[in-house]
């Protein structure tokens, strides 16, 4: 058997029991690699449970700076007997299996094509600690220590991280470092260190990684920071995985930044609503009244908000909604990722409605697009839905640092102030298309003693906000709303188009978290002589560029993480191109992020090229 060999390029997976403190130890492991300057992307694969079920943590180390899932596992750290059999079977041939050797290895789980590294974790803890909790907790720290020897992690960095983690609880530092050392010691004395796969600091990293002074952060925190920077003052929400940490992070930053030091009073308000209908109602009420307000939710919440989204569309009230998508339908797999709310979000609510969608692909975009969303929601007076997902929202991603231009000014949209109203000679018409862009002017309640008051409603009204059942007036209003949606095309984040090295009529189209594996697949294919232009969608409605791109290509692979090829359908629907045959669905919907290998393999299939890189056996072919 030949063991795997690779420097700075491998996948390691941790198999733990939920609620045993493994998350922080595993996080420290990933962060240490990040600190060494080596591209890393960790992913939590956790159950919908609080304690006791299997949970995994997959860490990809990628010399080339690929942050999407690669597919395949080179090393497994399995400390969960429940999942051991499955864990063993998942390892690539030549891979390494680190396990708790306190009990002898069950022979049924022995494979000849992998290396076993047994460490008596339980035994070591039993010997070392008397407290049951500590015995549990330090197991994780010990294996991280062992990995530092096996994989060549800079031990000083680990020590720093422990110090940072327990700042303020100094007396926990020593035992943690001790546990790390025990692990390191054990591995150094029992195994040939480092393994064939290991880390090496100071190696050449790809340009796009070098260029930036990278940070490691999750998309939900970034979106929350975006809301802070956009000046959101009201957040109303209802807890739901995987969106909960958006408002949690918003609150954390508001506590730091928005409490008046003199009075101790808050320049923000966060309300945990009784459900998602109510959360969206609050967001609409607050925006109507001139505060920037938002909510965050996931699929079931979007379904519940659909009546209110229709109201906001029709009554023309701004709103920002972060949809951190998970695997549907219904409750589905609440702790797995998907991009499957696209049609539900685009057409949320009965009647002729359409909503503006943003598709962030990185934490940096979660930040910047959230800032932008507040501007655009107010400019267009309509809801903006930011379509994030569990993978982006809850996992830590290497990202260029967040940037904010201090010269940038909020665009609060067309709002007439008291002074504007005072100066006005003509009659104020809330729904008059004064500028020909479909966007009318609004006023905040209380703006002026006797001008500008109007009646907001979800029913049909004329230009002066008076109720009407006159068909012509209704049509005029509906047509204006459509014109406004046209106007939106010039304002939404534009698609990113990247031509291939050589002219081609083939293309890849993707968005959000399909971007990372897509770019990786692209480079792989390019090396094989398969050239594809790319378009990364960043928003809906689609701009002319998107239409032109589809027009210009013969075959466009649309990569998305849902069963029904929802983005492909939205493209068919909302562009004026004959694209049925040319838009080819590449879908992955098992709840885990699509891998670069999968994308590459499907495209090779279409190109009639044999698989030139070995595929992991369990990879399914696309139907």
């Amino acid at each position, binding site marked *: 058997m030949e063991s795997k060999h690779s420097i700075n390029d491998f996948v390691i997976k941790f198999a733990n029991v939920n609620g045993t403190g493994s998350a922080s130890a595993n996080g420290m492991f990933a962060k240490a690699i990040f600190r060494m300057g080596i591209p890393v992307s960790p992913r939590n694969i956790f159950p919908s449970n609080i304690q006791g079920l299997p949970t995994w943590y997959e860490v990809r180390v990628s010399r080339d700076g690929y942050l999407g899932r690669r597919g395949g596992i080179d090393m497994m750290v399995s400390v969960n007997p429940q999942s051991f059999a499955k864990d063993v079977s998942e390892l690539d041939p030549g891979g390494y299996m680190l396990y708790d050797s306190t009990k002898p290895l069950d022979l049924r789980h022995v494979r000849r094509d992998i290396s076993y590294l047994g460490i008596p974790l339980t035994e070591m803890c039993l010997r070392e600690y008397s407290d049951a909790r500590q015995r549990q907790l330090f197991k994780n720290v010990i294996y991280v220590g062992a990995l530092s020897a096996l994989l060549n992690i800079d031990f000083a960095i680990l020590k720093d991280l422990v110090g940072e983690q327990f700042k303020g609880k100094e007396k926990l530092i020593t035992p943690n470092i001790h546990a790390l050392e025990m692990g390191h010691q054990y591995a150094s004395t029992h195994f040939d260190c480092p393994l064939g796969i290991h880390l090496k600091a100071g190696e050449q990293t790809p340009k796009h990684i070098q260029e930036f002074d990278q940070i490691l952060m999750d998309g939900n925190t970034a979106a929350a920071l975006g809301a802070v920077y956009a000046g959101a003052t009201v957040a*109303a929400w209802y807890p739901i995985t995987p969106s909960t940490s958006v408002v949690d992070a918003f609150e954390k930053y508001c506590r730091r930044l928005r409490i*008046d030091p003199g009075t101790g009073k808050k320049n923000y308000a966060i309300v945990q609503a009784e459900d998602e209908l*109510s959360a969206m109602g609050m967001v609409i*009420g607050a925006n109507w009244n001139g505060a920037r307000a938002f909510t965050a939710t996931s699929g079931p919440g979007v379904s519940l908000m659909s009546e209110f989204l229709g109201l906001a569309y029709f009554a023309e009230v701004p709103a920002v909604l972060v949809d951190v998508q998970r695997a549907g339908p219904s409750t589905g797999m609440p702790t797995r990722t998907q991009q499957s709310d696209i049609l539900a979000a685009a057409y949320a609510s009965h009647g002729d409605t359409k909503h503006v969608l943003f598709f962030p692909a990185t934490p940096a975009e979660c930040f910047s697009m959230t800032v932008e969303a507040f501007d655009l929601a107010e400019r267009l007076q309509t809801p903006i839905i930011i379509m994030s997902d569990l993978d982006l929202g809850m996992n830590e991603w290497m990202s260029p640092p967040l940037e904010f231009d201090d010269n940038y000014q909020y665009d609060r949209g067309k709002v007439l102030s008291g002074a504007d109203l005072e100066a006005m000679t003509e009659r104020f018409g809330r729904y008059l298309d004064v500028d020909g862009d479909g966007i009318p002017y609004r006023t905040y309640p209380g703006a002026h003693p006797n001008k500008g008051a109007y009646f907001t409603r979800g029913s049909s009204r004329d230009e002066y906000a008076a109720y009407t059942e006159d068909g012509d007036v209704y049509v005029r209003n509906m047509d204006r709303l459509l014109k406004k949606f046209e106007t939106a095309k010039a304002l939404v984040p534009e698609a990113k188009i990247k031509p291939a090295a050589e002219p081609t009529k083939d293309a890849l189209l993707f968005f959000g978290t399909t971007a990372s594996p897509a770019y990786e697949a692209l480079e792989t294919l390019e090396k094989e002589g398969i050239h594809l232009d790319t378009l990364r969608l960043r928003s809906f409605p689609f701009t002319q560029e998107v239409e032109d791109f589809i027009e210009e290509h013969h075959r466009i692979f649309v990569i998305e993480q849902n069963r029904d090829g929802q983005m492909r359908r939205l493209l068919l629907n909302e562009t004026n191109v004959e694209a049925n045959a040319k838009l080819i669905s590449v879908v992955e919907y098992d709840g885990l992020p699509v891998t670069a290998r999968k994308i590459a393999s499907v495209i090779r299939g279409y190109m009639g090229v044999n698989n030139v890189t070995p595929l992991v056996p369990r990879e399914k072919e696309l139907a």
Partner: protein
Amino acid sequence: MTYAKPAFRHPEAKTNDVGCTRRDYEGGLSTLCAGCGHDSISAAIIDACFDLSIEPHRVAKLSGIGCSSKTPAYFLSGSHSFNSVHGRMPSVATGANLANRDLIYIGVSGDGDTASIGMGQFAHVMRRNLNMTYIVENNGCYGLTKGQDSATMDTESVSKKGDINPYTPIDLVRVGIEVGATFVGRSFSGDKAQLVPLIKAAISHRGFALLDVISPCVTFNNHQGSTKSYASFREHNDAMPVDFIPRREAITTSYDAGIVHEVCMHDGSVLRLQKVNEEYDIEDPQSALDAIAHHAKEDRILTGLLYIKRDSEELHDVLQTASKPLNTLNQRELCPGSRFLDSINAGLR
């Protein structure tokens, strides 16, 4: 179709402390059925706002869907208004109030809008003690969809269609007292002498003020057996009139002191209660529930201010929001700028 305007009581000429005439508080032409109780309530709101010398533009009106929820179009046309979706006005009101704590929020709802589809939001807006006046125009039926029984319809009463309602009604004032409303009153649309001061008191109350106003639907629920019709209400009504004296007039009452109970409102104004049938501590929720139950057992509806919690914390107190309305904060006050972002980035390395 009726104007909510009994001009005889308030000659146009009379102006209040902010220089407004009663006409300044009126709204558009009502499209409700002639004689609908809801129009009387609109008229009472107009009177109350006029009497309180509220500047109309400092009021935000909110409602759900239903005949009752249409009424904000028929009073205070100088105020912004939000006619939202069925049963969900409380959340819209909550958001609006969070954005600007300085306006006066008047919500109008129906019994269908509140007690059926809106039950969840209704309970929770009370639990949060949102600073608003919430008026339920309670007619025991769904007027706008042509008279189906609502959840406040009395057991055994017969609807226009001839069906006997078999369910127990939900008593909104009891629910209000149970889940956290801090001002709970009941009145009757036809009893302006009681209703106007109650609305004034509700508006002056700091916190959630619930007014359950029985408001007959002349078209669908004005029939024998329904306590929500004019006829039956007049029989069963056990009135507990209130007289509200705004602070700035500082007039003491000339009523017999022995039967007047003074309640000090949060804005300093004094509410004087005259109890017709009994004395109980209206600041004790359990006593209020007992009294309501006692009267209900005798087939009477207790009206007036039934419960009040003074010095309660309204939602902004609870959330410790700044006194400056959130919607007035500008970018300079809200945006931390790039420097802070640098420190965030540093912490993520």
